[in-house]
């Protein structure tokens, strides 16, 4: 292949009409508002911390330090998920980021699935994410961003083992430089300190399957793309869905259930793996969370598109996920 082929491929794909998004302006405005609020919250926390520090330094006003921003947030010893699954803490640690040394946590295994929960205080903007990996297993998904709200992540652990060593890498991410003036310096954004409380929970599923509500109906039209076909099912009973269609298509997937965001769909066309391995959107309120994956199928010739479903991390038949997949085309 030649460089010319490479240019042609890039131009072919770059010339494709992007899925229309009439809500882009309002979505960007919402992101700006959220970022402003987060900046204010962080600034407010810093001021509160400074005030607390000043108070401890004043003569005759010594007080215990206040629990303000950048202190270790607490995670419960037990909690119950919406579907009745009971979570019990089996190991915990605290990680300060950015950091250079990896933290290794030994997690006892009893055969029950293990989830990792995190709560974080400190820097939000330019936040960094610990990556979690278990020996001998494929790379885990990391945690998205520093948030006080508890985030729960499915963890893949070795089957049949009595324990697992989980490595928390407090790497600094997002250090690409920003150049604000033409020919000016490209400055690294400052990475501020965050304190992550991490806890490993084993969970015991409900005694009977808890069937989630049906996913909302997929939109009949998204810009120029119309809904051609759709299929629905419940994982794990239905873990494959097949469509026969033609031409350029977009695939949309929405799911319901406590483990909905962990369901992943790999796509193959005419039996050939496309390498696409997408997650499922959860649509509870607001605009449809479009996440259309585009596939250029041959025009005038019917192709078979197969989606195979798998769960990322621990799963159980009593925690099913209901899914709905739509094929869109012009």
């Amino acid at each position, binding site marked *: 292949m*030649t460089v010319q*082929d490479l240019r042609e491929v890039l131009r072919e794909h770059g010339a494709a009409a992007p899925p229309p998004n009439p809500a882009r302006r309002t979505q960007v405005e919402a992101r700006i508002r959220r970022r402003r609020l987060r900046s204010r919250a962080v600034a407010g926390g810093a001021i509160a911390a400074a005030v607390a520090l000043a108070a401890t330094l004043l003569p005759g006003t010594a007080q215990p330090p206040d629990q303000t921003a950048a202190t270790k947030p607490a995670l419960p010893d037990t909690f119950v998920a919406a579907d009745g699954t009971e979570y019990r803490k089996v190991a915990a640690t605290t990680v300060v980021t950015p950091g250079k040394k990896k933290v290794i946590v030994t997690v006892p295994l009893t055969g029950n699935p293990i989830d990792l929960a995190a709560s974080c205080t400190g820097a939000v903007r330019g936040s960094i994410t610990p990556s979690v990996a278990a020996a001998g297993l494929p790379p885990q998904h990391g945690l998205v961003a520093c948030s006080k709200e508890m985030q729960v992540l499915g963890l893949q652990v070795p089957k049949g083992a009595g324990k697992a060593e989980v490595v928390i890498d407090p790497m600094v991410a997002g250090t690409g430089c*920003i150049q604000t003036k033409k020919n000016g310096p490209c400055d690294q954004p400052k990475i501020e300190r965050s304190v992550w409380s991490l806890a490993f929970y084993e969970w015991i599923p409900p005694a009977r399957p808890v069937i989630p509500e049906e996913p909302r109906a997929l939109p009949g039209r998204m810009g120029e793309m119309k809904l051609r076909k759709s299929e629905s099912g419940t994982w794990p009973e239905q873990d494959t869905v097949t469509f026969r269609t033609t031409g350029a298509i977009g695939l949309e997937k929405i799911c319901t259930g406590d483990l909905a965001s962990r369901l992943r769909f790999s796509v193959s066309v005419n039996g050939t793996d496309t390498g696409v391995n997408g997650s499922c959107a959860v649509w509870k309120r607001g605009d449809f969370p479009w996440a259309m994956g585009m596939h250029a199928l041959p025009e005038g010739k019917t192709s078979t598109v197969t989606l195979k479903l798998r769960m990322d991390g621990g799963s159980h038949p009593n925690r099913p996920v209901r899914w709905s997949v739509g094929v869109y085309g012009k």
Partner: protein
Amino acid sequence: MADRSIFHDFVATRSDRLLRTAYLLTHDWALAEDLLQEALTKAWFAWPRVEEPEPYVRRVIVTTFTSWWRRRWRRELPSHDLPETAHLDATGGIDEHDSLWRAIGRLPARQRAVIVLRFYEDLPVAETAQALGCEPGTVKSQTAKALAKLRVDESIVKELQR
């Protein structure tokens, strides 16, 4: 210096072009939209200091994309290994271009960014280096590595050095 009053016009008129660049980086329209919106949000805060909005937003798209890659936070998970040979299946409709497109999607983030900036945006080495915040020599070496992985004929040396 860009006036914030033109920000919305910029979003309306330039988004599709920038979204295509984001798509070539992510290979997924949803991720591309997310990447574009993240870059536009970052750009809004820097807007009064930005002299050339479009190159600036493109630069933020690229740096944000490479930082996402480091965080491994993305919806799509391309495999690490390239196929030994390209699949040539005329009956299935998967041709050399499809194979090349998928192979681009398996490149590491920085090499993918170099390929998109150099061969889609047609940026010379120096501007690509500026966009990525690295040395021109790094751009050349990343280009060579990427082309080798893509099994693209590197005989057109001028392409790499310009």
